[in-house]
């Protein structure tokens, strides 16, 4: 996280120096007011707002990589902060009437700041659309970062349950079928055992990418647990789901995955089952799916896994 801030250190230094210059100008030109003349309400209002803006700036810089949109948002917030800061300083320092530049310092940056912020937020929206495109097949309707599995990263079992609830309700209202695919790798624990967790984790990430490439626009991929994934297929009947399931199974089989250390090819295969949702709640549906998977695994020729 500190590295994120370090990336923006020139911007921060610039802001600090500008604010400092404003302060020095005030001190040079004017005199400090006696405490009795301080207007505490103004100080709390303007000073507090300036402090909050500084917090926003910190959070913004901490969470965003450098770039066009970040610069716009930063400059906007910086102008607003500067203007409020000058307002606050004004409460403590009395300037002679001959000085007129203080009005400019207080009110000038404010509109510029608002314009820059508006531009920034507009471009942020554009950027978010681009990111949403990357998140396609990983999330739908709502975002809940606490329900995202850190490894793959896909929605976890809780996200899946919440999504199933939504999808099933939608489907019932529109009288459309919903199908589910469950994919479980065969002999996956062998990878962890023979190559270590790091290799197993990497394989899961690769498999996630592979599956995402094979999905349609509205399908949603989630990681149930371990090496077991579930895909929600809205507006899809069982036959279509079966075809998709077979395609996924083939995709996994023909993936020529190489281990990181030796570069040797790992023979991969997956058990994939598809089901159409009946009139049932998410928990029952998942349980039914799970039992279907258990049966499919029993009939495997390579039964380890």
């Amino acid at each position, binding site marked *: 996280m500190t590295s994120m801030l370090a990336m923006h250190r020139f911007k921060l230094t610039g802001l600090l120096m500008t604010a400092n210059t404003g302060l020095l100008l005030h001190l040079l030109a004017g005199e400090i007011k006696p405490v009795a003349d301080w207007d505490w309400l103004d100080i709390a209002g303007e000073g507090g707002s300036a402090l909050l803006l500084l917090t926003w700036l910190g959070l913004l810089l901490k969470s965003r990589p450098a770039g066009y949109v970040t610069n716009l948002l930063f400059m906007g917030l910086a102008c607003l902060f500067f203007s409020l800061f000058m307002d606050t300083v004004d409460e403590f320092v009395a300037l002679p009437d001959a000085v007129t530049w203080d009005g400019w310092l207080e009110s000038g940056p404010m509109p510029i700041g608002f314009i820059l912020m508006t531009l920034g937020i507009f471009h942020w929206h554009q950027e978010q659309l681009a990111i949403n495109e990357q998140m396609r097949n990983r999330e739908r309707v709502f975002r809940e970062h606490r329900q995202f599995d850190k490894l793959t990263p896909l929605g976890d079992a809780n996200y899946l349950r919440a999504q199933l609830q939504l999808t099933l309700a939608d489907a019932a209202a529109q009288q459309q079928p919903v199908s589910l695919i469950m994919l479980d790798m065969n002999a996956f624990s*062998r990878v962890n055992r023979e190559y270590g*967790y790091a290799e197993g984790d990497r394989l899961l990430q690769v498999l996630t990418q592979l599956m995402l490439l094979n999905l349609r626009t509205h399908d949603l991929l989630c990681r149930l*647990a*371990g090496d077991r994934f579930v895909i929600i297929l809205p507006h899809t009947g069982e036959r279509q789901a079966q075809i998709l399931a077979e395609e996924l199974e083939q995709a996994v089989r023909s993936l020529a995955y190489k281990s990181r250390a030796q570069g040797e090819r790992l023979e991969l295969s997956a058990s994939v089952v598809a089901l159409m949702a009946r009139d049932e709640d998410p928990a029952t549906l998942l349980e039914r799916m*799970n039992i279907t998977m258990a049966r499919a695994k029993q009939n495997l020729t390579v039964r380890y896994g």
Partner: protein
Amino acid sequence: MVRTERSDRWLECTTRFIPAHYQPASLIDLALGRGVNAHRLLQGTGLFHEDILTGNRLISPQQFLRMIENLQQQLQADDTSFLLGQQWLPGHYGAASHALSHAADLQDALERLVRLQPLLWPLLRLRLRVDERYIWLDWGDSFGADDQSIFLVEASMAAVTGMSQWLSGQRLPWTFHLAHAQPRHIEQYWVHLGEELRFASPLNQMCLPRSCLHHLWASASVTAGQVAEQEGLKMLMALPATCSLLDGLHDHLVAQVRQPLRLEGVAETFGMSPATLKRKLQKHGTGFQQQLDHARARVAMELYQSRGYSSDEVADYLNFNDRANFRRSLRRWTGLLPSELGNWLARY
């Protein structure tokens, strides 16, 4: 197994006997691989990562349990216990692991696991029971695991499931009984254990049809396995003691379950004063009555499951004259009334 050295010394939660580069090392590897800070992981254990890398550090169960507690706090993932368990057996613990890897069949492997347990699975005591139809595994808490007990049970079950699957080359039809209520992350149980899960059970148990015991395992080398077991037993003898105090007490209570059992008498058998025994039990976060309840629960379950006793017969066996008292006691031991337990058993 008869333990002849019973009056001498016991493993306690502060005895340093677990090589830090065995089971704790794979925990550290997993944690570091998932981005947990090594310092945070070892916080409060008095250990440093460098110590563990030297390969000659012994740690106590208390330190190991603290490490697990830290891991649970630092790594908020539901699959940690299962992943660790899968890695823990047969493991890389010298001769003891070899003995396990070269077992001829499941029975051989489980018996070795029981005999070499302090080396292979130091925190919980594995108990094996074979009756006419089933084999039953259950776990005793050797050192007062307390808040980590669910984690350890998940890990143990994943370990035995994973090991039997790995060595036999197939998924075995295990049934899992878990004492805790069904958790939210049930999918982890599905994926890492299996579908036959029963939560809110009287004991933590795994059960398998007896017919699976004697399928020969292809990868086994029988002679190498026997030699490794002998070496493993020598390693076991080199430990400060071969049995934990709580396990020793449990065995004694089970053996004497039909006699009236009191703290004073038991302390005398163990060659210590009642106050000392009481203090030692407190150190492990437990008490005499709790241990006695646990021993009786286990005996009762064995009578119900393996001998098909009725509740009346179990009450008679355990010398309960008063039926109401037996109902209350059974409820305390297993969480179920006799009638509920009857239903639970019938649903098999």
